[in-house]
């Protein structure tokens, strides 16, 4: 979901790398490049080229926004979970997403952009979040499928980022990946329970959820490599490690095998094993739909952003009251 950040980067002029100006800057650039080539980690206060900083702020903040907006489709089902056990699991998962958002915002802030600026970019629609969260969660089976496919795709994207050249981001990713595994497993287990012990209606519900989430999950890896112009630079910087298409193929190969265990089928008539490639061939992805959702016209874009902005605005008095209380308290202590 994070590779989308680079592929959906605005085409503004300030996105373009600027020509190196002074000799001093050229020397810094050279030493930075050498560190990257040596596989060294870059830390928060180290000198970095402006384009590296911008690309990272955009990628990390989009990732953070995705975690935060990603709480909304699942939050929808907390009060409707079928059992207390499932409710406790879902609550823990949604709380994790909030935590992941916070780790990532903190990493983005080390690059010199404030939390309020990051929020403002999300709330004004300037910053993007993963296209996947603009789809509705219609049934309980969607909770299982999100864990299995959506979190599964996220993990596949995130594991290589644990070796990202920007250390604060890499450290956040290590923590996130450790926690994300629970998300995927609980999803698969919830689906398996319905498929092995559920009624016919419940099994049909699982298949329906798979049918609706399969293609949007494949889109999470971003556009095909041929249309991913920023990838090369990001690979060079070690911000991105594996290409969109390679990750997508890896995801298809893993999940199609898992679908057999569940007893569901993927909604793709062209899906078949290719003996020669030792991989699954799959049908064409509807990129028109992808760009439409990224562009703000998915099934739930307005609802998601509206809910997020409302939560922020409704909470303003609480944030201000907490600060006022802290000021009053510190004055009393000083007296």
């Amino acid at each position, binding site marked *: 979901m994070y590779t989308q950040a680079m592929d959906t980067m605005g085409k503004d002029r300030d996105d373009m790398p600027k020509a190196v100006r002074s000799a001093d800057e050229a020397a810094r650039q050279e030493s930075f490049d050498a560190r990257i080539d040596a596989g060294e980690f870059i830390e928060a206060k180290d000198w970095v080229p402006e384009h590296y900083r911008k690309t990272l702020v955009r990628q990390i903040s989009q990732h953070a926004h995705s975690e935060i907006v990603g709480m909304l489709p699942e939050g929808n089902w907390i009060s409707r979970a079928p059992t207390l056990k499932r409710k406790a699991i879902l609550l823990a998962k949604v709380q994790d997403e909030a*935590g992941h958002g916070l780790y990532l915002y903190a990493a983005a802030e080390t690059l010199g952009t404030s*939390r*309020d600026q990051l929020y403002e970019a999300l709330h004004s629609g300037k910053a993007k979040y993963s296209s996947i969260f603009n789809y509705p969660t219609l049934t309980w089976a969607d909770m299982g499928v999100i864990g299995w496919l959506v979190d599964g795709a996220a993990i596949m994207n995130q594991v290589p980022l644990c070796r990202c050249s920007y250390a604060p981001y890499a450290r956040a990713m290590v923590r996130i990946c450790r926690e994300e595994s629970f998300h995927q497993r609980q999803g698969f287990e919830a689906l398996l329970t319905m498929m092995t012990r559920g009624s016919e209606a419940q099994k049909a519900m699982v298949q329906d959820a798979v049918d609706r989430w399969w293609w949007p999950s494949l889109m999470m890896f971003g556009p095909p490599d041929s249309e991913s112009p920023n990838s090369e630079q990001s690979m060079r910087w070690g911000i991105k490690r594996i290409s969109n298409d390679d990750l997508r193929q890896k995801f298809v190969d893993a999940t199609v095998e898992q679908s057999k265990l569940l007893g569901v089928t993927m909604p793709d008539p062209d899906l078949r094993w290719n003996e020669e490639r030792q991989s699954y061939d799959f049908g064409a992805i509807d990129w028109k739909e992808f760009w439409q959702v990224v562009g703000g016209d998915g099934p739930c874009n307005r609802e998601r952003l509206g809910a997020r902005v409302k939560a922020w605005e409704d909470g303003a008095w609480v944030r201000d009251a907490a*600060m006022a*209380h802290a000021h009053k308290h510190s004055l009393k202590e000083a007296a």
Partner: protein
Amino acid sequence: MNAVPSKEEWPLWEVFVRSKAGLDHKHCGSLHAADPQMAIQLARDVYTRRQEGTSVWVVRSDQIVASDPGDKAAYFDPMADKIYRHPTFYELPKSLDHM
């Protein structure tokens, strides 16, 4: 759909967690909180949801004094040629190797 900006951003705190008795506190991340009490509470919720800690420290980020990464070479490299500070510098008779 422009959100109203909050008047003042909550200050930033650095979080240190002791994973178990006998080990030292280790930096694990940062968070925003209005006051120390809230910072400790949030640190627990954000960084120890799976029993990662038995003790938490928080400190205002603006209170930390750090060395300048630009001075790294001037600061730390002089230690590189002081190999006599390491026990391996000294060659002793075989019978004393484990001194």
